[in-house]
């Protein structure tokens, strides 16, 4: 029993919640009675929207400001650092020239249209990363307020009240669109404060807003397809990943014909083609918004055609009895974790191929442009731009894979809070065996994901550069030595799980902060100590740089200590669903 784990404590918390939402509930009951007394009054499908909106914004009162702040910091921090990094117009022109001629740089950061204003530079540098952040935010938001609620059964409780069947989706979309609007507005304000033109600022804000609306729309469809919030988030991540990949491929190809049009298939590609401070093509924002509206419309239609709790993807019957693979607690752990691992391995392999295959031609820049070397060198930290670029690519893949590692660790807490851990732990499975059955995946799986990413990059690079097996070997090695950085972040999650279970989701915060600092830190001259706090800063820059065992060994040790502390804590603490 979920609530009975700490019966009174849980009840108390429920009561607290109930008293908080008492006012809103009163309103609904009035509304219901009005409908009840009016014969023939039809229940509007959006009834109860206001109540749901209040509930949703209460639940998001911490998460939303954090996201908005992260976006604000991305735009503001980037603008500030670009100002310091390229003070003179000559520097900016060189940068523009190198981006224009180099597919690898375009793939990493997108095309640069104009170098005469700080605004245009900022838009170039933030729309990729910022757009991705907005995309992740709306995917999580929409799922959290629709499918996850439906899965938990809470929506059924609300749905039987005076809440129309479209109200939850409308509430989720309103919150998501509202948040994106807020982010866009903040971006406008920041750029105005930095003295940039209003039209460009509005275009940049419009881009961040529109990309959010577009992915809110696609997620409105995604949540209809599956029965679980986890799977809906998985589809959302897939959509974001494919969209980002299309942008990468299209940008690498550039305008020189060929595959450049591919970027036009992706909302990330669209917003890059708005050209803030460089023409302000408003109609592209219009296209992005329209795509979101159309997608959301499809989401509503699908929702009205399905049952509450049901999905569109059919559920096939399973085997009537457990096969030999599902004996014992390790079999269960494998069954639950393996699909996610395989998905990530496939994803990083494909992404690696794309990143690797655009490595050609980067070395020509060496003499032409010091500036490009300056940025990319800050990520890679070594000479030889090809090596540096590939090291940067691996470090990007590592940051993505760190999310997998954290997600795999947090599955433990998910199993615990959902009550699914309880029957297993009241069986002949020790706490350590149960935790171990899951933790094997962030431990070994991280290495496998990185090996897959490295393999992909090596295959791509070897294809275009020659020396196929040489590159494959080097890149797989580069991927594998990134793994200890992933372990440190994942192990922080294990420590939280064992010692402060209620704070386990803060592991996502550790991940976010690490990636944020590792990404923006090198751009800002100051704060090297801050960058040094992230494990990624200590990974040897391979290929190209010198290889040292020492950082890998101590990072592994840190991970072991954190994991050990977490496991000792978990053995001693209560199993609890709240």
């Amino acid at each position: 029993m979920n609530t009975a784990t700490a019966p009174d404590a849980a009840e108390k918390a429920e009561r607290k919640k109930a008293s908080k939402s008492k006012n809103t509930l009163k309103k609904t009951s009035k509304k219901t009675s009005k409908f009840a007394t009016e014969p023939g009054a039809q229940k509007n499908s959006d009834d109860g929207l206001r109540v749901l909106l209040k509930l949703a914004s209460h639940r998001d009162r911490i998460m939303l400001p954090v996201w908005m702040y992260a976006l604000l910091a991305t735009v503001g921090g980037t603008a500030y650092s670009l100002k310091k990094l390229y003070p003179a117009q000559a520097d900016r022109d060189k940068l523009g020239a190198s981006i224009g001629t180099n597919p690898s740089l375009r793939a990493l950061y997108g095309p640069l249209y104009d170098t005469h204003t700080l605004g245009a530079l900022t838009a170039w540098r933030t729309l990729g990363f910022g757009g991705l952040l907005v995309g992740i935010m709306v995917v999580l938001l929409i799922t959290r307020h629709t499918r996850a609620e439906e899965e938990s059964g809470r929506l059924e409780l609300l749905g039987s009240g005076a809440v129309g069947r479209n109200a939850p989706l409308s509430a989720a979309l309103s919150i998501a669109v509202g948040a994106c609007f807020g982010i866009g507005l903040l971006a406008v304000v920041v750029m105005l404060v930095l003295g940039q033109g209003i039209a460009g600022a509005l275009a940049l804000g419009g881009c961040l807003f529109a990309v959010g609306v577009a992915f809110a729309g696609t997620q409105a469809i995604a949540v209809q397809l599956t029965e679980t919030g986890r799977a809906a988030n998985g589809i959302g991540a897939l959509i974001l990943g494919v969209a980002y990949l299309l942008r990468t491929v299209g940008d690498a190809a550039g305008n020189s014909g060929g595959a450049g049009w591919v970027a036009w298939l992706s909302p990330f590609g669209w917003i890059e083609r708005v050209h803030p401070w460089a023409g302000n093509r408003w109609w592209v924002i219009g296209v992005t918004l329209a795509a979101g509206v159309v997608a959301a419309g499809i989401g509503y239609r699908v929702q009205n055609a399905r049952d509450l709790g049901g999905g569109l993807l059919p559920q096939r019957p399973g085997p009537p009895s457990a096969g030999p693979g599902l004996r014992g607690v390790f079999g269960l752990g494998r069954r639950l974790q393996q699909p996610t691992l395989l998905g990530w391995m496939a994803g990083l392999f494909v992404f690696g191929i794309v990143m690797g295959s655009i490595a050609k031609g980067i070395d020509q820049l060496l003499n032409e442009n010091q500036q490009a070397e300056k940025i990319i060198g800050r990520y890679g930290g070594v000479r030889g731009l090809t090596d540096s670029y590939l090291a940067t690519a691996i470090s990007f893949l590592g940051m993505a894979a760190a999310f997998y590692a954290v997600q795999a660790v947090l599955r433990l807490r998910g199993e615990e809070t959902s009550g699914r851990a309880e029957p297993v732990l009241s069986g002949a499975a020790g706490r350590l065996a149960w935790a171990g059955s899951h933790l094997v995946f962030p431990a070994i799986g991280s290495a496998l994901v990185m090996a897959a990413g490295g393999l992909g990059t090596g295959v791509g690079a070897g294809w275009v550069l020659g020396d196929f097996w040489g590159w494959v070997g080097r890149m797989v090695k580069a991927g594998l030595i990134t793994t200890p950085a992933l372990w440190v972040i994942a192990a922080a999650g294990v420590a939280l799980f064992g010692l402060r279970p209620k704070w386990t989701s803060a592991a996502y915060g550790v991940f976010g902060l690490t990636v944020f600092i590792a990404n923006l830190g090198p751009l800002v001259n100051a704060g090297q100590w801050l960058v040094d706090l992230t494990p990624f800063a200590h990974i040897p820059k391979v290929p190209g740089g010198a290889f040292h065992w020492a950082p890998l060994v101590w990072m592994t040790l840190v991970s072991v200590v954190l994991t050990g502390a977490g496991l000792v804590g978990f053995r001693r603490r209560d199993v609890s669903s709240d």
Partner: protein
Amino acid sequence: MTTAISASGLVKTFGRTRALDGLDLTVQEGEVLGFLGPNGAGKSTTIRVLLGLIRADAGQASLLGGDPWRDRVALHKRLAYVPGDVTLWRNLSGGEVIDLLGGLHGGVDAARRADLLERFELDPTKKGGQYSKGNRQKVALIAALASDVELLVFDEPTSGLDPLMEEVFRQCVAEERQRGRTILLSSHILSEVEALCDRVNIIRAGKTVETGSLTELRHLTRTTVQAELTGAPTGLENLPGVHDAKTGAATFTGQVDNDHLDGLLKALTAIGVKTLVSRPPTLEELFLRHYEPEGAAR
């Protein structure tokens, strides 16, 4: 007879809430003990302490001769547990879950598994997400009942089951009892407890308030007496041990403490009895007697 479960003075606090406040519980080997109490009384918390999922702040507990916290893995091979609210893995079929959980509880008896699937009318090929609450409950029940264990722990096991399935569950428990298995049945469905249990343990606000066999408990309480008389019922309400007496022109209805039943009957026959109905207290009345006065004070 040896003791399967014994707990004394269990205390468990969650924050400022005292979920268990000196709880005592004894289950003899081979008996079915009904563990009664209203919502939030601490039944599930007690069970979770006994399963080593949470650790009591104070008090002693022993389970099948071991320490429920320290020896949990070894002990869990000898027991099976059904929670009141079963959540299943969405991508595992019911049959897979039965084998998995059964395997964690000393192994599944294949013949018994097949028999139970049939009796509970469960389709084992459905995936976890497709089962209704009652069917999820059945999955956990079959896994527990088909396991080869000494002790069965049920925490409100029939919530969500339809009356037919409740009946199947009762038959199964009766069979398990005949095989000599020990059963701890937490419930607030009194008819279920009355039909199945040898003894009951009633708790309230984390404390044991009553324990004993149903006969013993009944002895401590009152019998309801209704009589039609040939004469006027005078003076009956003042007899010792008579409560809630209502008298008509020639009728009497009231309750009497069991040790004063004799006196009331003598007085009634002295007046002259036309019809007489006397009813022993139901478990419901026992239960209410323990909860109402203090409940009202709350």
